[in-house]
């Protein structure tokens, strides 16, 4: 763990446009903060990819690039944990019946791997319907102390 890992808690919250530029800037911000928080180098790319996938889902599938809808993006670097939340203003979807992208019949599908990758890359993954109608994803990376 980097020496600066004994960081002070840091929290950032952004209301972002439903654009691919927001996806890029959210990823960049998350990786920078994860590095400051002490996430190990090999894990930084995984955090970045999980954030990218969650932001793409919010912008593309949730808000459908609607200029009137925002993505609520927040990061909390806490002692021992690095937490990212991404919430959209979309119509929601049934996340309990998502097809398994590893099933033989789905292997050659061109989409449907985003949530699987988020789960694979992070230590904890939660998804819930928001009362306002959107969907919120929570991604957690545990900080390893040495």
């Amino acid at each position, binding site marked *: 763990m980097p020496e600066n890992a004994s960081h002070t808690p840091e929290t950032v919250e952004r209301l972002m446009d439903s654009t*691919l530029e927001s996806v890029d800037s959210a990823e960049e911000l998350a990786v920078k903060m994860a590095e400051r928080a002490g996430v190990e180098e090999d894990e930084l*790319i995984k955090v970045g990819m999980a954030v990218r996938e969650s932001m*793409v889902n919010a912008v*593309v599938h949730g808000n459908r690039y609607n200029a009137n809808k925002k993505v609520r993006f927040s990061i909390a670097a806490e002692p021992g944990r690095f937490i990212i939340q991404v919430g959209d203003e979309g119509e929601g979807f049934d996340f309990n019946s998502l097809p398994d992208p*590893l099933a033989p019949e789905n292997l*050659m599908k*061109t*989409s449907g*791997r985003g949530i699987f990758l988020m789960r694979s890359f992070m230590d904890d993954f939660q998804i819930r319907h928001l009362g306002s109608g959107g969907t919120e994803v929570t991604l957690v990376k545990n900080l390893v102390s040495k």
Partner: protein
Amino acid sequence: MSVKLTTRQVGDVSVIDVAGRITLGEGSSALREALREMVGKNQKKILLNLGEVTYIDSSGIGELVSGFTTVTNSGGNLKLLNLNKRVKDLLQITKLYTVFDVHEDEAGAIRSFA
């Protein structure tokens, strides 16, 4: 840098050298267009060199799968060359590594089309 695609011909094999990021948007669109163009020109032997790819997301993976299907359905072969660790890991966890014919050496990859 988003993505840069360079095509070259080695014998009857079309090689596409890909550099940069294959992500939703410009990166995956460019790859899709390049492969469609190859298929449109009736190229049957296509080698995708991913040696300089720094990043690929689920959209990029989808584009690889789509390209593989398009080329195969047209009676051709799409093979992959020079996967770095990140791309290789990604194809392994998505169980796609064994779907593609993956090579580490260009000369060997070219010969494998014969």
